[in-house]
Every structure is written in structure tokens, then in C-alpha cells.
């Protein structure tokens, strides 16, 4: 969508639970690189992955991902 950018609070959520990127990757079943690129906003996850990440944190997906006005 033009004008929107997907942001996330993955790093904060991970820090709250004391999880490393590897541990989160193992929970979700993806590579550590994927977690790293999603956290840094380099890679936009699919709906499936976003929901899987939310499930891993036992939070609604909106608590992890949100839209901001920017160069989306």
C-alpha cells in the first residue's frame, strides 16, 4: 500500500521474554537470518509468518506489527 510502512516491536517483545534470535527462530521454524531481517525491517514477512511470530509470543499480531506513514 502506497504511503505505509510495516514496523514491528519484535526486538522489544523478544527482550521482554529474554529470547535470542536463534531461540525465536527455533520456535517459529525459520532461520535466524529471517528473524534478523524482519526485526530490522529489511524483510516484510508474509501473513503466515507474522501470525506465527505473534503465536510464538502469545500476543495478537497487532501488538507486534503496525503500519506507519512513510515510504512504504
Amino acid at each position, binding site marked *: 500500500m502506497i504511503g505505509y510502512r510495516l514496523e514491528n516491536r519484535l526486538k522489544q517483545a523478544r527482550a521482554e521474554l529474554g529470547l535470542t534470535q536463534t531461540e525465536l527462530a527455533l520456535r517459529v521454524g525459520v532461520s535466524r537470518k*529471517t528473524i*534478523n531481517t524482519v*526485526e530490522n525491517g529489511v524483510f516484510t514477512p508474509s501473513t503466515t509468518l507474522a501470525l506465527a511470530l505473534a503465536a510464538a509470543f502469545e500476543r495478537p499480531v497487532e501488538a507486534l506489527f503496525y503500519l506507519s506513514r512513510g515510504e512504504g
Partner: protein
Amino acid sequence: MSETEILAVVRRFEWRRKVGLGMSLLGVVVAGALAVQFVPGDPDHFSRTEFLALGAAAAAFIACGLILMRLGRIPADARTPRIAMLRAERLQGRRHIALLLMPASLGCMLPGAIRAAGHVADGRLVTHIDLFTVAAFTAISLLFALMIAGRGLDSWAKPVLDDELSRELRGRALAVGYAVVLAGVAALFVVALVSRTLAVELIPVVAALGVAGPALRLFLLERAAGGGGEA
């Protein structure tokens, strides 16, 4: 068994498997060299003794390779998701080296493939060496393309090497190959208007670029995606 010990056992197992695979492939190459002898045309053939000796060598290489690949088992502890991830990340490092070596190996084979294509274009006699060179070049190009496309990955490595990010990066890399081949074929049409021989000789170059381009692109994309982060 500690994590380090498990990884050491796995490393030994993988090394044995790699040597076995190498031997089997060598056997297949020798068998391929013998198989092209049956193609009619070229009057030069291996002698009966050479044929038998090479046939025995090919069979021995393939048999020894298969035995080495089957020897030993990975410990059950190595099948845990964490160890599988560590193994897969190590494998990914080796795949990066392979991606860099692909253009180099195709480049080494290219002169032979161009020479063989030139013989066809000129209507000269196609020798057994030409046939073998073209068959090897085609088989290796296809093998590389399949490796870039992520085919044949072990199931334990898929969470790392075939996850969402990897698939996206592979898709972007393969799109480069598609563009290169499309542009190359269009260029071949134009070249063919001027020189048919040159157009035929350039076919292997287009094929090699169609594989080497995605390999390098995938290497760069994966390296860019891998920067930073924490364990």
C-alpha cells in the same frame, strides 16, 4: 553427549558422505565418457582394454562412493531442532562458497563447449570429446540451476535454507537469470542475422550467464541479508 561432541560426530559423518558423493560423481563422469563412445560418427574409439579398464574404474568409484555415503549414522541427538539449525547454518556457509565457484567452473568449461558448438555450426565432424564436453556442460549447468533453486535440500535443513526469506531471495536471483537468458536469446537472433556460426557458438555463453548471474546475485543477496544480528 555435549553439543560440541555431537557436532564433531556429525562433521565426520558429513565429511565421509561428501567424499562418497565425490567418488560417485567421478565414477559417473568416467561412465559418461564411455557412454559417448557408443554414439556413431567419430571413427576414433577407445580400445577394448581402455574400455574395460575405464568401465571397471567407473564401477569401482560408484560402488565405493555409495558405500561411503551409506556408512555410519547421525546420532539421534543431532536431530534436535537446535543442532539441525546449527548444521544448516554451517551448510549455508558452504553453499555461499559453492555459489561463488559456480561461475568459475562454468567459465572453465566454456571454451570446450564453444569449440563443440563451433564444430556443429560449421558442419564439421562432432567428436566424442565434443559430445562429452557438451553433455558435461549441460548436466553441470542444470545441476547448478537446481542448486540455486533450492532443490534436493535435506528436510532437516529446510527451516534454514528453505524458509520464507530464502525463497524470496532465490526468487529474486532466479529472476535475474530469466532476464539474462531472455536478453541473451534475443541477442542471439540478431547475431544469427549476421553470422550463424557465431550465434551457435554463443549459445553456451548465454546458458552459462543464465546460471552464473543468479548464482552471484543470490550470493550477494544472502550476504546482505546475513549481516548483523545476534546468535
